[in-house]
């Protein structure tokens, strides 16, 4: 378990905009789990999708500046909640190992990197270092009764030969973490099918079409809510849910939680740190399902029970 370990933290631009609740709740959860985050000082945008679509060296240079900021903290392990940022930072590290690439990047940046860096998602650290079992032990309010559809998006695990996190075709991190919290996790075969990503701005029909498919399938499973780990996915499924509804001529009304928000609830964290009010599709009805049955279960016992069950299902 990572309790006490310190990481550099890269919040990403959306953390102070469209996914402010993800940033807040990620910090809160990490604090509760003993993962110490130190913000990268004066970090810059990783360039997101546009940068790597314009040039890989430019993209890597933007990331390299951030990693250089980590070096000023004496850190070389950086965490970020956002898979898009993760992909850029991770690819920069990977590409810098390729011959000739480093020289190009160094020609663009002020301070070339001096160390080997690793970049991981907050989710990866919680899943691999803290582990769902340990999370289950800390649950004070089980999410019993809540039926969730886990949605991982494209980027976090793929391709496996590069990302080295979880299963590239059937990831389990969110599944197991949510089970550890006591929620029911529905089998969702589209858990990595693309939501449309950044295509919403240029043409929101694309996101509507792709996200709509995901929403339709989730509703057909009888889910109470989505649980996600990506600001862009969350935005497409939540903020653009109405657009998708229009595209398919129907309504969905499916709240889309960040996994950190649900963890915050289960760990009994201060609600104000979870930003549930920031969700566009109102989560009240879904949240009301929590604890409908088995309310009498003692928190600790339920936590342990969940763990066993999660293992059996795995």
């Amino acid at each position, binding site marked *: 378990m990572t309790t006490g370990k310190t990481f550099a933290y890269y919040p990403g631009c959306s953390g102070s905009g469209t996914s402010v609740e993800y940033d807040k709740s990620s910090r809160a959860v990490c604090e509760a789990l003993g993962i110490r985050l130190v913000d990268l000082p004066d970090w810059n945008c990783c360039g997101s999708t546009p940068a790597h679509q314009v040039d890989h060296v430019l993209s890597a240079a933007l990331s390299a500046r951030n990693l250089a900021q980590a070096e000023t903290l004496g850190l070389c392990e950086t965490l970020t909640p956002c898979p898009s940022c993760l992909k850029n930072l991770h690819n920069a590290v990977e590409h810098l190992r390729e011959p000739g690439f480093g020289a190009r990047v160094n020609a663009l940046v002020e301070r070339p990197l001096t160390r080997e860096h690793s970049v991981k998602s907050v989710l990866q650290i919680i899943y691999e270092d803290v582990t769902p079992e340990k999370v289950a032990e800390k649950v004070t309010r089980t999410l019993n009764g809540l039926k969730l559809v886990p949605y991982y998006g494209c980027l976090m695990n793929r391709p496996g030969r590069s990302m080295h996190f979880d*299963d*590239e*075709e*059937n990831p389990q991190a969110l599944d197991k973490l949510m089970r550890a919290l006591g929620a029911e996790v529905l*089998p969702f*075969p*589209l858990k990595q099918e693309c939501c449309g990503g950044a295509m919403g701005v240029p043409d929101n029909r694309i996101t509507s079409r792709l996200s709509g498919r995901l929403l339709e*399938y989730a509703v*057909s499973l009888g889910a109470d809510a989505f649980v996600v780990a990506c600001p862009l996915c969350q935005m497409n499924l939540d903020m653009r849910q109405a657009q998708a509804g229009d595209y398919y001529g129907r309504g969905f009304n499916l709240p889309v939680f960040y996994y950190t928000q649900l963890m915050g609830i289960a760990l009994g964290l201060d609600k104000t740190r979870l930003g549930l009010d920031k969700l566009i599709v109102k989560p009240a009805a879904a949240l009301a399902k929590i604890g409908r049955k088995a309310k009498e279960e003692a928190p600790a016992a339920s936590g342990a029970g969940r763990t066993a069950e999660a293992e059996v299902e795995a």
Partner: protein
Amino acid sequence: MKIGVFICHCGSNIAATVDVLKVVESAKSMPEVVYAVNSMYTCSEPGQQAIEEAIKERGLTGVVVASCTPRMHEPTFRRTVERAGLNRYMFEMANIREHVSWVGKDKAANTAKAVDLVRMAVEKLRLDKVLIPKFIPATRKVLVIGGGVAGIQAALDCAEGGMDVVMVESEPSIGGKMSKLDKTFPTVDCSSCVLGPRMVDVAQNERIELHAYSEIASISGYVGNFDVTIRKKATYVDWDKCTGCGLCTEKCPSKKSYDRFNEGMGETTAINIPFPQAIPKKATITAASCRLLSGGKCGVCAKICTSQAVDYTQKDREITVKVGAVVAATGYDLMDWTVYGEYGAGRYPDVITSLQYERLLSASGPTGGHIRRPSDGREPKEVVFIQCVGSRDPSVGRPYCSGFCCMYTAKQAILTKDHIPDSRSYVFYMDIRSPGKGYDEFTRRAQEEYKAQYIRGRVSTVYPKGDKLVVKGVDTLVGEQVELEADLVVLAVGGEASQNAPKLAEKLRISYDGYGFFMEGHPKLKPVETNTAGVYLAGSCQGLKDIPSSVAQGSAAAAKVLGLLSKDKLESDPQTAGVDVKRCVGCRKCINVCPFGAIREVDMRGQIKAEVIEAVCQGCGLCTATCPQGAVQLSHFTDNQVLAEVEALCQS
């Protein structure tokens, strides 16, 4: 020593870029060379005659031929010098064609190089010794490992040729993969009708001794004289008493045992006979599923058995046999397709392998030959076949083509239509590989007569939706994505070397390739031999192949065995290692490294010495490179010979 050197022109092949006469002149001044001459085609009849005459007339005691590669004509010229009365090992070659005239443009440089190579050959020859082959007695009996169609063919052919055969099969019944098939391509004839009688032949042939549910514990010895230990696994049923009546299998209360023969498509009893045509038709208890053997109370089968064959106390036991040759026919395994997350990695019951589908098609299968979906027993109407699952896929370490999947998929599409006339089959393929007699016509029939829809493209993902399976793929011929809600998805899972192949290879001391397939002696000219004398290959253990090829190889291996053991004594290659016992200090390093177990420890007046078993030694020379004091020397490649060659090059 009186050495004669013959420099070949090879027409203009050598002479065009090497000054042959200059080489002859240089050779004349080399130590102990008494005769040097050029020759237009040394390997031709007059060329060989010239060598013979020179040996006789000039009393040569050693011959060097500088011509092509020794890998081509060394045996030829050895016979030549032998005809003239020399020992055939008093001969060396210098390769001045492949290594000189064909690869260098500069005539002066080529000539100098040719002279060096001749000098090297002369220096080596000066240290050559007369070697005389030994004759070793041989046991006229063959071990056939594996009772699939290839092994059965090899065993029956050997028995037919008058050879005693010991057959070892790891499963409770022989028959192999073929016994699981419903029909065979391209004739769509019944697999068990073809194979069944051959299996019965094995059981009835007096020359064949069958050990089913057994494995090879160890093999020692060498060609003509292998000592084999066979481990007979406990069946908990005395097969001498068991009549195969099957009563026990009806009464066994433990009915949830994994059915290996049916590829898990059904369940079986803890005591079972794998299938009605099994040979031997004897019952076996799966210990893990047996209530009594796994610690509970039961004993129903023992009570019910009229011949008191059930013996819960039975243990594995080992027997030993002596054989003169071995045929490995251990077949293949299906690759573990669950690495493919995109097809559900085994989570969806209605995504099955082609071999599982065979069991659903087979009248002797768990559904009695009615195609039923594993999930709900419903008859599928839309059946999708995905080809190349685990074949031609470097990302999962299987870059090779399994070779038979295109054909059996066509067959399965045809059979699907036969079984369910209103069904539709979709075959996703990359290329259709059907180069065999009647094969391509067969795949055309699947499409033309049986209306199988062939889609040129891959399936990206399969996922459940309601009680259907959504299949998302592409048709690359129209360049568009395609989708289908299917009832059943059949994966044409490729084959791989059987899991135990490397272990067996090590016991047999044969090599295997990076995938675990056994290596043949030569890809063209020794397809069923291995590099270990007396060990032959048949069927898919050497590389994936279909039934006709497996059978052909079984027969070929049998022919090799019959040829090898047609004599009572075998000649051994004398180019082996030998130990100078005076120098040997008994440190055992050579014994440790010998890949063939050809060196043993002997006690010589209280001192440990190494001793080479010449018939086992394959002549690699690893021992010679290992022995610190140089006590073990490989004949014809001694340290002194190599050093002489080095000196010949460096001092020149």
